[in-house]
């Protein structure tokens, strides 16, 4: 079963076409790594999958629910407000810049949506929060504020926040690009552990060695298209453009 299905995705910003017909399927438990040069459309694809950008054309299905699709009349329709809220509970997104809420404690960053969106009791939310923080080695920071945490710790909290709703799929948008190498390895370790637990994940990253190790499938994007995809495109690229890009690493 595919948790994420994206078919023939087109997206333009003004006259600039950023996605030129992308097809991407992610099976349950699969880890997909998206690599490629900046401006190639990786982040835009992720933002389209997570409702942060609207597609111009194509179909997106998440955990069986249609998020958006282009009808035969050529008009692209999104799910109604209520279904959208429901679909948003089925995925999580980890940002490059964490985007934690600075005025909330670590605990409240994680529990706020559980309580006010998913209508869980405070006790339930706290229990979920505690078990996630424990798992991520952050339990003693539950009452700290984001400004008092290192970048790596902030990213752990944002991973915990994304995991709190028990999502079917987790998206990562360059989760380590704002971190120094030491902190990066800590976050990569967390993602690796999630992969071992068969969390379905789509990871946009510039960490080639990590992508090669952790991903079941790699996708190389450039110029708004998928140039090449497969298990071994980093160790054994077929296309000229992929080779050229990887030569830089």
């Amino acid at each position, binding site marked *: 079963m595919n948790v994420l299905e994206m078919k023939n995705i087109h997206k333009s910003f003004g006259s600039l076409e950023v996605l030129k017909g992308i097809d991407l399927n992610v099976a349950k438990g699969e880890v997909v790594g998206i690599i490629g040069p900046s401006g190639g459309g990786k982040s835009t694809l992720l933002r389209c999958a997570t409702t942060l950008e609207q597609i111009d054309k194509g179909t997106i299905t998440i955990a069986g629910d249609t998020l958006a699709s282009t009808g035969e009349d050529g008009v692209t329709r999104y799910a109604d407000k209520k279904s959208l809220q429901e679909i948003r509970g089925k995925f999580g997104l980890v940002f490059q810049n964490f985007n934690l809420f600075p*005025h909330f404690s670590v605990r409240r960053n994680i529990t*706020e*949506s559980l309580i006010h969106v998913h209508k869980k009791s405070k006790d339930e939310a706290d229990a979920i929060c505690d078990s996630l923080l424990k798992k991520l080695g952050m339990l003693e920071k539950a009452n700290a504020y984001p400004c008092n945490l290192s970048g790596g710790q902030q990213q752990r909290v944002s991973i915990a926040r994304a995991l709190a709703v028990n999502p079917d799929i987790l998206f990562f948008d360059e989760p380590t690009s704002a971190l120094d190498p030491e902190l990066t390895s800590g976050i990569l370790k967390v993602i690796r552990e999630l992969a071992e637990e068969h969390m379905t994940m789509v990871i946009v990253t510039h960490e080639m060695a990590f992508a090669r190790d952790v991903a079941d499938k790699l996708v190389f994007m450039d110029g708004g298209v998928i140039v090449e995809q497969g298990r071994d495109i980093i160790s054994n690229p077929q296309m000229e453009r992929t080779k050229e890009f990887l030569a830089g690493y």
Partner: protein
Amino acid sequence: MGDLQSTLTQLSSGLRFTLGIFFLTLIFSIPLGLLVARGRMSKVRIIAGLVRIYISVMRGTPLMLQLLLVYFGPYYIFGVKLADLDIGPFKYRFVATIIGFSLNYAAYFAEIFRGGIQSMPVGQYEAAQILGFTKMQTYFRIILPQVVKRVLPSVTNEVITLVKDTSLAQVLAVTEMFTMAKNLASAQVSVVPFIVAGVFYYVMNGIIEIIMNRAEKSMNYYS
């Protein structure tokens, strides 16, 4: 000494009006300012345009003139006699003062709030959207509390100015503290009432500074 005693008593009675104008203006102009800020940022161009003109006029003309217009306007323009009307316990001159002050201060507050709201990083909205918060929840739980922290120093400025601006109500013959001081000064042929009034204003603003500093400190737990 008898003079000083009666000066204090009379200024205190004027202080009621001064405080009344001050608090009522804040109560009305801050929520109105939030609304105006929203309007100013509206995607509907006609709303944004009208609000822009409103802010421009409110900031670009004297408050004293605006007060006179609110008071005399209904009669001179529309022939509606409000001047003798009592609204609840208040005379229309006092009500007109509150309307004029609120409309004027809402324009200034709106621009401060707009600056604060627009300084919020887009990532905060995106994170909230992904987590499923509604627009209202995002605004009241995520954005507004952070905006308050950002705009507090500018708001303090306005609040302090408001204390002093209450003296403009004298043009509508509201017997606030400054009007009283003026009358006393000419009756006593002395500047003492002015000095006492000055001390009153200064003490009020001193209290405001202390309160606002505390408020700022209470939000220092995050940055």
